[in-house]
């Protein structure tokens, strides 16, 4: 009876996942498997194209660097926030997540103003005498990564604050009282306990960065094309639905593989984490 009740209660969510996730993704992948040239012809064409391989590799690079930077910056920021007194903690959390209140396009556009040849960064460098002429910062891979890190660090902080808060102070005090130096306390107590939160945050950041469109479009352009901007070009500009579906299918596969890999890493770092 309880089991039947459980099934009944989960039916609406299951139906929603099937209707709005599994069926559309399945239909997208089905388009790539019914090409007149052959079963896997679209994927062969993708992998045989130097340009498309470069786009895939570039997107992986951007997403990986963004994730690593977000984990490092987010972890230490979240640790400071989690150990702050309650009143200060609220203020710090608000400050950390304040950027999330504005849209992705607005936040990405702000970097156009900051990193431009006549922007704030170049103006400061020239004023300090570090350079005589403006440095080209926009429309490079690094400008895309910088903006992505800015976009995703608040998300990482939010995830990690919740996890780090659950680490009891008693555990840290016990390790310290048994003679563990701070480095050992971090490596053998805090970090393993934080691994589940790090993995959740890393998955969210990686998938967001890997599938991003607005930031690469604004700050990268067609010379820094990513899977998201390539998909838009193929679907909405050249109307090549097979090619666009192939890009989408590869994005799904890469995302799933990376999530599974991260889960394995989490288990290795903390066997109790699942």
């Amino acid at each position: 009876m309880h089991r039947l009740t459980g099934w009944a209660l989960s039916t609406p969510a299951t139906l929603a996942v099937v209707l709005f996730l599994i069926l559309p993704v399945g239909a997208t992948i089905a388009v790539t498997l019914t090409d007149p040239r052959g079963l896997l012809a679209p994927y062969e064409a993708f992998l045989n194209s130097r340009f498309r391989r470069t786009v895939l590799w570039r997107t992986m690079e951007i997403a990986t660097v963004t994730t690593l930077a977000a984990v490092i910056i987010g972890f230490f920021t979240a640790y400071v926030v989690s150990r702050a007194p309650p009143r200060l903690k609220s203020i710090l959390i608000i400050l950390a997540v304040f950027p999330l209140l504005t849209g992705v396009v607005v936040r990405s556009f702000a970097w156009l103003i900051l990193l431009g040849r006549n922007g704030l960064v170049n103006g400061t460098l020239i004023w300090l005498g570090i350079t005589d002429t403006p440095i080209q910062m926009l429309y490079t891979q690094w400008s895309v990564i910088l903006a992505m890190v800015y976009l995703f660090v608040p998300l990482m902080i939010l995830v990690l604050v919740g996890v780090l808060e659950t680490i009891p102070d008693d555990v840290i005090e016990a390790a310290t009282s048994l003679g563990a130096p701070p480095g050992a306390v971090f490596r053998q107590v805090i970090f393993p306990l934080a691994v589940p939160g790090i993995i959740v945050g890393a998955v969210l950041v990686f998938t967001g960065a890997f599938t991003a469109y607005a930031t690469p479009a604004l700050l990268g352009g067609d010379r820094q094309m990513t899977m998201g901007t390539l998909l838009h070009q193929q679907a909405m500009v050249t109307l090549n639905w097979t090619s666009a579906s192939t890009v989408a299918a590869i994005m799904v596969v890469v995302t799933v593989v990376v999530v599974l890999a991260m889960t394995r890493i989490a288990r290795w770092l903390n066997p109790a984490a699942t």
Partner: protein
Amino acid sequence: MRLCSTVLLAGAAGMALSAGSPLQAQTLTLSWWGFGGDRLEEFVLAPFRDYCGCEIVIETGNNSDRLNRVQIRGGAGVDLIYLTDSFSQSGIEAGLFQPIDRSLVPNIDGLHELARNPQGEFGPAYTIGRVGIVYDSAQVAEPITSWADLWREDLRGRVSLPGITTTAGPMVVMTAGDVAGVDAFADPDAAFAQLEAILPNVVKNYNTGSEMINLFSTGEISVSMAQDFALAQLQAAVPTIVWAELEEGDIATLNTINIPVGAEEVELAHRFINFVLDPERQRILAENGVDAPVHAAVELSPEAAANWTYGERLQNLRRVDYSRLNAARPDWIERWNELFGG
């Protein structure tokens, strides 16, 4: 009894509302770029609303976005679509547009010949433009006088080219072919090899006129290949911008206005086209920086004509064979992606 009367009255009121008022306005849906929207509103949309008593809804985007949306909807969704001639040619070849009933658009007879039926029985041209080179004379010491100057070493990291999917994008490839001494349609390998040589000069390619203007105004670029519709706003943003006088001449573009096969307000759409082609309307649009006139009766002062493709400028323009261009486009897009995105 009172309750019964109330229910009857409510029901009658509801039926009257749902049947629609006889004064309900028609709605004309326009597909257009979005560039300079305030001027379109002031000099076209607002006057036409007064003229027809109708509502107007706008759908915006660049040529390829909007044409693809019409194609996805099977020719429906909008009553009129503004496109450059290369994209309207694609739309015609895809069977998306219906022939224009010229008896409903008498102002077509007053247009310059090249604008009357540029694509047969389909939409007329409502304006003519040109593609050329613009540059910031305060940043570029030596004037630009030839298409080949885009490859100059002193322009390293200072150039933006139109994206391959824009109106002027394929003209970049044609220009590269000219510089290499080949016909880009016949020998794309040589044309793209020449284009590869320009890579060090290119900062970023642009996909909309406003993006190009932003690149100039923020100092990211000093030179671009552009269409003249953006010149007035570009010079308002950067007063030192000049239009290069090229020894080979500029390239002509015609903007057309077509009625998709699935348009709901066909008669109203024809009235709109006739309204836009009216000589007085064409004069107002030209004098207020919206579009160059194609009606032969329009006379502009030298100041008003300064930035437009008008008068003698109409004689020296190079034309593009859009049938060949549209056939080459898919291959050129792939090659462009390999070159700029790889």
